[in-house]
């Protein structure tokens, strides 16, 4: 039985570690589902978990590159807060005076400002690490303190709210979704693209005369990928928008609201952003020279250098990318809350590192996947939301998350040792 399962996994060419993580996630969902009489398994909860995971998951994809190259970034939580506060002040205090309140371009300027600010600060940290050779732990520990302090200085500690209405859509909520129809279109296109890529890769392999998976195995994988995407869209499209929000939305669209009118949320915009980031980062990791050099440098820094890779500049690029992703995460986090206070992003660096590490990124360098980090973020958020909905005290929540982190890494170490990977 066990051997049959193993050979099936082999034939499908699945990564056992991926299956393990998905298994852990499903177990967590079922356990909390039982303890909450199914409330945890409702479309509403899946919608919330997906939105709440987005910000940390976006940063976790960048943290994979940082940790793969044997570095660490402790500054992302503070940087998220600093960017969030600066951009909030920009759209609350500066841009309305210059362009007029509610100007259409405010959200676009804010988005670019957040990403550029993150990339610039990240690049600077990367330069100190790569060229001045100060260890990443120290540089980003410094950044952790500097950004948190700088965040206070931006507005002397004043909370910035409310944010631009269009900007706010990037954080989710009843309005910040694709809506039902677009969600279906999104799901169908995503499923077609996934299947298309699998076919393309198979054809390329076959054209070089390499062995390919049996057709039935490929078919099952395509069905799982397409089915998973469409299942997700179905769940998001089964969460009705509450009455109050419905009145607001219909009024804004000039449609008359009648009792019994039901619209569903659909896929939240931050989740769409996360998926776009995750796909882009996976392509970068697997299909670009930059990604190849990240992994080569993590596996053997000396070999990378001797192969002519400029590992110093690579470090600058990796931290700039981490900063840009922190900028995107900051947009999601501040838009979701519709306000930025001095606490924004506190402890996020630890959630991000934990997500990457639970997702199988090795601190010894050279190994880690983007999808693993995203699933790691989902596991962390599911645990936290689940415990909150069961009514576990906040201190105990931290204890559980801490223990799970250590346990997950231990399991990973045992797995690596057994498989020799």
């Amino acid at each position: 039985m066990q051997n049959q399962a193993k050979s099936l996994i082999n034939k499908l060419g699945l990564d056992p570690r991926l299956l393990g993580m998905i298994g852990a996630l499903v177990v967590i969902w079922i356990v909390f589902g039982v303890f909450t009489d199914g409330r945890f398994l409702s479309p509403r909860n899946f919608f919330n978990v997906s939105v709440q995971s987005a910000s940390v998951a976006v940063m976790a994809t960048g943290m994979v590159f940082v940790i793969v190259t044997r570095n660490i970034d402790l500054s992302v939580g503070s940087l998220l807060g600093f960017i969030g506060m600066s951009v909030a002040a920009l759209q609350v205090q500066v841009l309305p005076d210059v362009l007029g309140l509610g100007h259409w371009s405010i959200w676009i300027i804010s988005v670019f400002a957040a990403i550029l600010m993150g990339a610039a600060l990240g690049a600077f940290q990367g330069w100190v690490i790569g060229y001045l050779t100060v260890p990443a732990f120290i540089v980003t520990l410094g950044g952790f303190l500097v950004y948190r302090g700088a965040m206070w200085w931006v507005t002397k500690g004043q909370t910035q709210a409310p944010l631009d209405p269009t900007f706010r859509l990037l954080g989710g909520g009843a309005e910040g979704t694709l809506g039902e129809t677009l969600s279906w279109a999104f799901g169908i296109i995503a499923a077609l693209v996934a299947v298309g890529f699998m076919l393309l890769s198979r054809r390329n392999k076959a054209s070089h005369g390499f062995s390919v998976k049996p057709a039935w195995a490929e078919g099952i994988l395509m069905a799982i990928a397409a089915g998973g995407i469409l299942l997700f869209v179905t769940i998001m499209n089964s969460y009705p928008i509450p009455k109050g929000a419905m009145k607001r939305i219909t009024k804004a669209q000039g449609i008359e609201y009648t009792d019994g009118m039901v619209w569903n949320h659909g896929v939240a915009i931050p989740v769409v952003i996360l998926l776009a980031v995750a796909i882009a980062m996976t392509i970068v990791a697997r299909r670009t020279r930059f990604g190849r050099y990240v992994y080569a440098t993590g596996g053997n820094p000396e070999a990378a250098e001797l192969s002519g890779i400029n590992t110093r500049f690579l470090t600058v690029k990796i931290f700039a990318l981490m900063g840009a992703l922190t900028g995107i995460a900051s947009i999601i986090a501040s838009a979701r809350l519709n306000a930025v206070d001095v606490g924004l992003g506190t402890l996020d660096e630890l959630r991000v590192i934990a997500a990457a590490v639970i997702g199988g990124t090795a601190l010894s360098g050279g190994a880690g996947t983007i999808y693993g980090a995203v699933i790691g973020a989902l596991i962390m958020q599911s645990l936290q939301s689940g415990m909150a909905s069961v009514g576990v005290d906040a201190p105990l929540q931290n204890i559980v998350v801490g223990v799970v982190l250590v346990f997950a890494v231990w399991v990973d170490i045992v797995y690596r040792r057994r498989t020799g990977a």
Partner: protein
Amino acid sequence: MDKQTPLVEMRDIHISFGGIKAVDHVSVDLMPGEVVGLLGHNGAGKSTLIKILSGAYQGDGGEIYINGEKAEINNPRDARKYNIETIYQTLALADNLDAASNLFLGRELTTPLGTVNDDAMEAETRKIMGKLNPNFQKFAEPVSALSGGQRQSVAIARAVYFDAKILIMDEPTAALGPHETQMVSELIQQLKAQGIGIFLISHDIHDVMELCDRASVMKNGQLVGTVDVNDVTDDDLLSMIILGKKPEGVPVQT
């Protein structure tokens, strides 16, 4: 002395690490189609000298001439531009990547879109491995899963694939069994016949006597001398290595 222009001439190279003269004003040269052995104890400075040629270190002074023209080699990328390829003693492989990714590391084949073309690289790797080591089959696994000999053949394939004119081999047979060592010997003969110049670092005198045309011996960072292997015996080379004593009655280049 030959009238031909040397392929490589390293003149008066010196480098110190914290007051220790690792390479102390050494000059060596290499002709096309020639194998020059670099001999010496551990710490004699042979690997350091060669790392200056491959761009891993920058010398404190001295000059390098390639085909009679002064060459500026400040990093491994520069060395590759002069078609200098190196097989390092440590092999310099990224253990977490597969054979094809290592072979093309820093020089990936790309698709028209600019993304790395793994399938094309694997196909090329299969071709060259078919010539170098027909038993090699593990193309999908990371090189950490390979045996010492297989890893060595990946490192050799990487040096040979890109039209090397100057090849540096640092202890290429240290990790190999007798059969694989024989394959390396045959490969060296082949490359020689193609006019490639090879610096062979070794502490095995028999290897050097068999494979090399000339031998340069180093001791304590200094060049003892360069001799034609046909002029000297094993014992002559040994006393050069151990005592730093030049053999009598034969021409010694210093």
